[in-house]
């Protein structure tokens, strides 16, 4: 009896456990903690943050333009100052930052805005237009850094091998997009706190788009003067930045993780990598620039000095980036009034019909820069009256005068300084001590594109005239 009971229990027990199982176990694959969709506003803010961080960064795997422009110099690891962009795979870093971490979230943000059931049709159009302006802005840096880039086939997860589009064609398409975006901004307020630049102020975004359009027009001037003239004139007629209050400042947080990347790289890291470059700080000293003390700290002997480009330097001996700039909440500047006035000065010189004189715009530009960095109007008046600074008496052509002063004003914006330096051909920077190439007029394509997207890569590099750092890009005629 007992044995038969045992037999029954042994036979039935597994059946009981079987009953405890669910039939469909595929639901186990669903992660209940993973959000099924991310809010469009969160994607927007994240993309904006990465964009501002990338442009402000001093990370040697991402943004080394302050070094190329000889505004800063390195102390121990000096390969980037000597134009080596390969060892740290910097092109790959830029590519990932812009395509994967900025453009793609903006793209998804746009798609999610379009699906919104709470927003009005006009509000959706406006939100998408602002995200699109940010995308156009991002593509501007990609196309001026690499030349031909994936554009029409980019940001499509189903196409792993996008073709590269012609740089000038992309650039023209961006201008068209910017105009369409401007027309689509119809509501009075948008995005609110999701927008960490203007807090959703639509009026400011219109100003931003037109000011950026002016900048894009000027960048095109050497290659297609007619188009540039039309773009610049329509942008100026629609209204551009008129004071530092209009500046596009991305507000970095006081506490990690969303802080000023320069603070992360220079202060939080505890590293002693960067000092002033002799090229830059000596120019500030020679011309008696009031921004010298605002840009840099004093050196070991209480004066101002910088390290020679491309050489190893003592960290303690030289001036370092100022504490204003290395503060955790120092904002990331995306577009400012100062460069706008420089662009207007250039527009006047190129004979475009914009109001004002070149000298007036030029003076306003320098003044705006000095005041932005914390100088006084009195400083600015005195500085702009100096014979080697004043527009009437400074040396050279308008390209030289503007190029030189733009280089000084675009201090925390090495990427823009590099673009303007290539376009205006001033200032002429002496080569660093042991350069691995000539002055880089573009960046080579990422290694990942060479290996994975080989056919399209080969096509693009032959079309731009070789995937070399010294290949000149479409906007860089001279």
């Amino acid at each position: 009896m007992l044995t038969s009971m045992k037999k029954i229990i042994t036979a039935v027990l597994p059946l009981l456990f079987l009953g405890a199982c669910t039939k469909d176990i595929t639901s186990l694959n669903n992660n209940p903690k993973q959000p099924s969709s991310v809010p469009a506003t969160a994607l927007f803010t994240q993309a904006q943050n990465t964009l501002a961080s990338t442009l402000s960064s001093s990370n040697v795997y991402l943004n080394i333009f302050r070094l190329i422009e000889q505004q800063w110099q390195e102390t121990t690891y000096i390969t980037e100052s000597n134009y080596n962009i390969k060892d740290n795979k910097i092109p790959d870093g830029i590519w990932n930052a812009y395509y994967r971490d900025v453009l793609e979230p903006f793209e998804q943000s746009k798609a999610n805005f379009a699906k919104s059931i709470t927003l009005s049709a006009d509000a959706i159009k406006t939100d998408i237009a602002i995200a699109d302006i940010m995308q156009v802005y991002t593509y501007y840096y990609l196309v001026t850094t690499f030349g031909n880039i994936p554009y029409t086939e980019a940001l499509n997860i189903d196409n792993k091998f996008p073709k590269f589009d012609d740089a000038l064609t992309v650039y023209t398409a961006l201008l068209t997009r910017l105009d369409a975006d401007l027309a689509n901004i119809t509501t009075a307020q948008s995005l609110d706190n999701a927008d960490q630049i203007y807090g959703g102020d639509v009026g400011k975004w219109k100003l931003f788009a037109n000011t950026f359009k002016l900048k894009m027009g000027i960048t095109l001037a050497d290659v297609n003067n007619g188009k540039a003239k039309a773009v610049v004139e329509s942008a100026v007629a629609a209204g551009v930045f008129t004071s530092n209050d209009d500046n596009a400042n991305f507000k970095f947080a006081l506490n990690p993780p969303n802080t000023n990347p320069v603070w992360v790289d220079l202060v939080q890291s505890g590293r002693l990598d960067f000092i002033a470059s002799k090229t830059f700080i000596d120019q500030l000293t020679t011309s008696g620039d009031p921004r010298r003390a605002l840009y840099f700290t004093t050196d070991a002997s209480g004066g101002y000095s910088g390290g020679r480009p491309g050489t190893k330097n003592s960290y303690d001996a030289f001036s370092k980036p100022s504490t204003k700039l290395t503060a955790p909440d120092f904002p990331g500047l995306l577009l400012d009034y100062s460069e706008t006035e420089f662009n207007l000065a250039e527009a006047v010189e190129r004979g475009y019909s914009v109001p004002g004189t070149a000298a007036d715009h030029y003076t306003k530009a320098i003044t705006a820069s000095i005041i932005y960095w914390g100088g006084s109007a009195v400083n600015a008046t005195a500085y702009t009256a100096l014979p080697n600074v004043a527009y009437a008496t400074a040396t050279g052509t308008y390209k030289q005068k503007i190029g030189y002063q733009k280089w000084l004003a675009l201090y925390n914006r090495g990427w823009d300084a590099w673009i303007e330096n290539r376009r205006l051909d001033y200032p002429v920077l002496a080569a660093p001590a042991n350069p691995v190439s000539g002055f880089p007029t573009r960046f080579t394509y990422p290694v990942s594109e060479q290996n994975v997207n080989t056919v399209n890569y080969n096509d693009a590099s032959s079309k731009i005239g070789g995937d070399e750092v010294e290949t000149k890009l479409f906007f860089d005629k001279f």
Partner: protein
Amino acid sequence: MGTIRGTDFIYKDGQRVVGDDGYYLQTSTANNVIGNSNAKWIGGINNTFRYKNLTFSFLIDIRKGGSVFSLDTYYGFDTGLYPETAGLNDLGNPSRLPIAQGGGVIVKGVDANGQPNKVRVENTGSGLYGYETNPNAAFVYDAGYVKLRQALISYSFPQSFVSKLGPVKGIDLSLIGRNLWIIHKNLPYADPEESLSSGNLQGYQSGAYPTVRTVSLNAKFTF
């Protein structure tokens, strides 16, 4: 599979080309195949000798071919950590002296015309032998080796002794050593077997540790 890519030297008739500045020219792309972490073959020789109660055995491991990138020499040759970065130059003077005092180095290679390089460069600071002036390919080495992986010496106590110990039927005492000797290798200052990680990080050394050597004593009682 296992390809190592990076910047390479530029060659002319099999010789490294040196630029006008006296340093090696480098490829403009960082995508050149400069090595492969896979070995051509891996083998071992195991043998055991017995003489009366003594046993001796050894295992020799051999790896032929494959390459490894050393981040340690990439930086170490740069900063002057290794003896190759000092010493006498072709003039018989310490190479770390300034050129003006007879120092400096002429790196081996040819100029653009194929003539031997004659440009002397300073070796007063860092950089000459390391990553600052050399392509990635300069730090890729042959990862082959011949190693005495294991040696064992064992003694079995005689039955006449063991039989007195009641239930014990046998006692073996062995001394075993592992990773005793790298008989031959081509990678300087590190064990070619060491690698940063598996997967995509094979054939890449950074802060390489020596392989742990173990010496153990083994007493085996059979009941």
